[in-house]
């Protein structure tokens, strides 16, 4: 077993190494230069690029970069001396806020989504069910930047209830902690629309399927009360696959959404990632990319290891002996391997 885990961790290093390599090559091939001052003539630009070693053979640049990375130094911005160490000064500085906003949005999305999805499934074909279906589809149908524009127009400009955008509390400029907290409301709402809609739809479908399965029939046959059937058997089992879609969703939410960040002035990673990429700030882009990949690969690893721990036995054992956690792990595993189908867009 230890050997398996060890192999997998080794594999992660290989994967991350390959990810860096491929990203590096792609960014190297991308046209443009980090020195985008229109005042510079091409020959002046070249001289400055020379100074930063950007015109060296690709292998030399790559070797130099990998050597730095091996010492856990991801480099900083090239054209300006804004960031010396992008990982330390930037990602660590910015992550808590986006994680907080994304986390709250995720919790809201999960609670509302599961509640209404379940209610809709229990009261199938009622007005509640129909409106949940319609709202769910609308939620995934309206682009988030339109939603953000509407929120801003209505709640900040017309009604003047909420601040226009997020501002950090700063007595020097005159923003209180209250402003800061109020400023998070709109981005949280805008962010939670997609989780609410997709979790709601997913919950409803799963619960409907559970209701039609044999063990629910058995439970009913045993004479259990309706609430007991719903809460003890149906919802519990329907929740497992629902939780599996929350995993990838959480990565997306923590990483933040480009549109929401732009509209509400949130110092997050997505917006900077796009800016850095367009500015051909290779090291900064690579560092943020690396961080994304690291989260992604780690989640897969954790799932795989947990699965690997149980694997030899569950193949033999029948599903019913698995227990909640076993089922959860199994379905997470299935989720990652199979349909990321809906491919919900979070941009």
């Amino acid at each position, binding site marked *: 077993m230890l050997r398996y885990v060890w192999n997998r961790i080794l594999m992660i290093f290989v994967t991350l190494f390959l990810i860096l390599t491929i990203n590096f090559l792609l960014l190297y091939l991308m046209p*443009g230069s980090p020195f985008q*001052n229109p005042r510079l003539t091409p020959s002046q*630009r070249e*001289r400055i690029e020379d*100074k930063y070693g950007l015109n060296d053979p690709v292998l030399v640049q790559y070797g130099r970069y990998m050597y730095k990375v091996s010492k856990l130094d991801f480099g900083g911005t090239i054209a*300006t001396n*804004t960031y010396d160490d992008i990982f330390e000064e930037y990602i660590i500085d910015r992550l808590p806020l986006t994680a907080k906003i994304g986390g709250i949005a995720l919790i809201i999305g999960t609670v509302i989504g599961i509640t209404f999805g379940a209610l809709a499934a229990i009261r199938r074909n009622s007005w509640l069910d129909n409106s949940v279906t319609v709202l769910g589809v609308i939620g995934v149908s309206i682009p988030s930047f339109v939603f953000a524009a509407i929120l801003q127009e209505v709640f900040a400009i017309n009604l003047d209830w909420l601040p226009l955008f997020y501002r950090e509390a*700063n007595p020097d*400029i005159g923003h209180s902690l209250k402003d800061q907290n109020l400023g998070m409301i709109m981005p949280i709402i805008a962010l939670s629309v997609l989780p609410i809609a997709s979790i709601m739809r997913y919950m409803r479908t799963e619960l409907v399927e559970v209701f039609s399965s044999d063990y629910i029939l058995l439970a009913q046959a045993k004479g259990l009360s309706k609430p007991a059937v719903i809460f003890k058997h149906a919802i519990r089992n329907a929740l497992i696959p629902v939780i599996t879609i929350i995993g990838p969703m959480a990565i997306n939410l923590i990483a933040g959404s480009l549109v929401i960040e732009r509209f509400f002035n949130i110092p997050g990673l997505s917006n900077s990632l796009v800016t850095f990429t367009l500015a051909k700030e290779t090291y900064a882009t690579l560092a943020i990319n690396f961080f994304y990949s690291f989260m992604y690969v780690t989640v897969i690893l954790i799932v795989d290891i947990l699965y690997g721990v149980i694997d030899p036995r569950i193949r033999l054992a029948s599903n019913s002996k698995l227990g909640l956690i076993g089922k959860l792990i199994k379905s997470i595993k299935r989720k990652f391997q199979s349909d990321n189908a809906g491919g919900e867009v979070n941009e």
Partner: protein
Amino acid sequence: MKKVLSILFVLTLAILLAGCKGDKEISGSGMIQDVNVRRAISMAIDKAYYTDTILANESYPADYYIPYNFYGGIGDNGEGVDFRVRAEQVFGDFLPFTKYDMPAGSAESQSPSGYNHYNIEEAKQLWEDSRKRFGIEKDETVVFKMLVHNTASWTSLYDHVKAEIEKNLTGTKIKIISVTFGEKLDKAPTGDFDILFSGWGPDYMDPITYLDLFVTGNGHNNIHYSNPEYDYLINQAKIGAFQGQERLDAYVRAEKILLQDDVALLPIFQSNSVGLRRTQLQNFYTQSVGPDYILKWVSWDTTDDAWAAKEADLKAARIDGDETVLKLLETSKIPDMASFTTTDQVSFYNLAQINEGLMVAGNPQSNEQYLPGMAESYTVSEDGKVYTFTLREDQPWVKSDGTQYNNEVVTAEDFVFAWRKLADPRVASEYSYLLETIGVKGWEIAYEDVTDMTDAEIDTELAKLGVEATGEFELTVTLNTAADYFLGMMSFPSFYPVNEAFYTSLGEDYGKTLTPENLLYNGAYYLSNWDNNGHTLQKSDLYWDKDTVSIDKVIYELVESAEPEVQVQMYLDGDIDSVILRTGALVETYGARSDVRTTGSTTAWYLEFNINNH
């Protein structure tokens, strides 16, 4: 299901077919070599529609390259003359200049004159003739590739240019190649375009700053324009062969060659901007060259009459007892505050408030372009090549807590140190080209390949640079050629002094983002706070001219991605005191308010025709 799929498939094919035009398309890169084709295109675009309706900010539709309100040179009477005024005097007699009417309510009733005025009939005639000459068939469409960068605010211009050309010149098609700004910089020198969108603002107060771009072999000459007469005029003017009005007239002739004879450029407009600004703010004017504003001269009107009853809260917030506060918006971070390496407008702007060079920009209400700053006085040698500055002896270096640094004052050595840093090939400053512009003796070191030299050897070379401390407070600058814009350039941040001891104690961290303590100040303000939300400029009590400075505290709020509408809302909410109306729609909505201000600029926006197709 198969039926549905096949229907979808057929429809997809239908779209693809609908996308293909029946007409034959041919490349226009050959035709663009023809001067009459270029003239036809130049005359086919209604520039006034763009400036009046889409921008609606009193920008001038331009048939000219050197902007209006730009100092051209010295006229016969020994005073400065506006370039456009002189151009009209020289060529107005035999070129019937036509002007655009400006919209009602503008400061000027007509735009300045230029060449190849909008004229559909003539454009059509020229185009039809050219088509015949090139033997283009009726069913053939000529495609011109227009290389542009994809900034959202420009898309209306691209679409307008495209629509106008395609509408007025039958059988043309403009293919817009929209790339990111960085890619455009990469692509333009390769010459893979027929028309290129560009803009240029001045570095210094002389028309050369614009005209130099199209001299044969200039690095910015992406269209490989080459005209011996043009080169002769500009190069002779550069080495000082022409003086006074003769020089001005040489520039006027050069511009005519570029626009009227060769039609190398298609000027579109000279941008102005309309913004909202508190009516009580005084002396808040933009400069045509260098940083936008000089806060040193700005003040609040504190009289009660100036503030309306509804503005009582605002007044209380801005004039709090003895302390006056100004709040402004910053839309991008300050990337780098090291004066000799920084390259962007935000940094330059802020450096101009916290540090001071030999000269300082003059009070906008007076006629003086610049006044002595750190230099108390200066003398010029007779040939205009050697400047000797006598520095103030009482300007301390200030730390970010407002106190003096190590009892040190600004000396001539601080300038020498900073200039050598600017020229140092190991630093590879992007702005070292300014040394070449002003023609300091020994600027070539900045461009030299020094990979084989030792540090000591480089230092010896740098010591040969034409800047010398001839006394503790005496600085001597030696130039290769006399240039009358030299003094004006001395107010530019790249030439500001840097304290060597302080720099050495920090090394690369000098001027780094978010570290006000990593800088020393010798200007009207110092940075008292600088974080992710913005920065605060605090009036310096140790500044030599502190009695002129009126505003005690200037607070900049940083909102990087604020939409234009949101910026206006911030102004209306009283968060900031000045805002630019960035879209025509906003000007339409707020343009009639009493706090609207129009600000001029001398940035020229134009299209370049790819004449020498590489």
